[in-house]
């Protein structure tokens, strides 16, 4: 990843080897952050595996910090989803009895 341009409150991140999967999820979370005034991403060329993510903040925090927080949130979300799934899976296996192979 490279920070292409930017002052503290506004930066463009070039995420290599990434696509809509990560960029859209990050954009969504960043958009919910009240200290972020603008966030958007673009994939300049479909055959180049790179995403440009632009973040501008209102000044309370730096763009890098905003991205770091978004990553943290998304990671917690993933962790939560993993444990919820495992829990639901174990519960389902229990209620179904042992007639099914795991």
């Amino acid at each position, binding site marked *: *990843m490279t*920070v292409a341009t930017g002052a503290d409150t506004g930066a463009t991140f070039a*995420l290599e080897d*990434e*696509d*809509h*999967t*990560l960029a*859209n*999820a990050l*954009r*969504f*979370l960043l958009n*919910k*952050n*009240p200290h972020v005034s603008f966030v958007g991403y673009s994939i300049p060329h479909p055959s180049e595996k790179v995403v440009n993510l632009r973040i501008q903040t209102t000044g309370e*925090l*730096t763009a*890098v*910090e905003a*991205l*770091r*927080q978004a*990553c*943290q*949130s*998304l*990671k*917690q*979300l*993933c*962790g*939560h*989803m*993993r444990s*919820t*799934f*495992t829990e*639901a*899976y174990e*519960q*389902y*296996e229990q209620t*179904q009895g042992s007639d*099914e*192979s*795991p």
Partner: protein
Amino acid sequence: MLSNRRLPDLKIRDLRDDYCEFELSNTDVSMANALRRVMLVEVPTIAVDLVEIEQNTTVLNDEFIAHRLGLIPLVSTAVHHMKGPFDDIGEKDFTDVELSLHVLCTSDDTQDVTSNDFILDHQHPEVYPVGYSDSRMQSEDAERPILIVKMRKNQELKLKAIARKGIGKDHAKWIPVATVTFQHKPQISINRALMDTLDEKVKEAFVDASPSHALSYNSVTKQVEVTETEAYMYDGEYEKMAQELHHPDLITITQSDNEFIFRVEGTGVLSVEDVIITAVDVLTAKLRNLQQALPPPEQNEGEN
């Protein structure tokens, strides 16, 4: 600081060897779609990647056969211990699984060359074609093997197929599932007051307006009821009918934007629950990667 995210709920509705249906709620489309996309193209599996043909006198050319071999699903539970061809490789890591095949047709009848004719890698016998049963101990209830090519007398096929770890982004043969879909849960609400102004015949016709039969008419209570919310296909037929009756407010159908129904169909390569768990892990790894690439924080901000 992190109040701008919600923790999703998950409920498994159905889980079989090759199918899983679950409800993901209290989250957003971006999350649901990220999960779907990762399950489809970023969960690694094993597939034949390189084929060395020694002898091929069949009717199909080498490339054609190589392509067919690539598409044969291989049981990929070993993928978690395997390294990809471009990863850093340690002493104990392995990247290649070598399957071989040698068939010579000696009978006067047409002979099938199938996935059962593979001779497995003796170092990695856990990697084998889905539904594989050794030709020497063929049982009657075995799954039908996958056909590679048909032969006539004196034709021969001898080759070495090297299977490797890969992801669906690079080639569709590595996709671990048949399909993954998510659907927004429909929300159907009927305007009772307006509905009561209609007579029986119209109500019955209204219920039949959409072939999805999400609604039904209860002849005892003389009410239109929502019976199969999820059967609704967003075909707009009920709304159209409501328009025609000059009561556009008769029914309101919206898509819930925080409840999703996921349907994952496996191919037998990995169990569906493994696909889902691995997808979440892949997504987490991506984020960890990104976080590490970010410049270190200047001061310690309130994270929790």
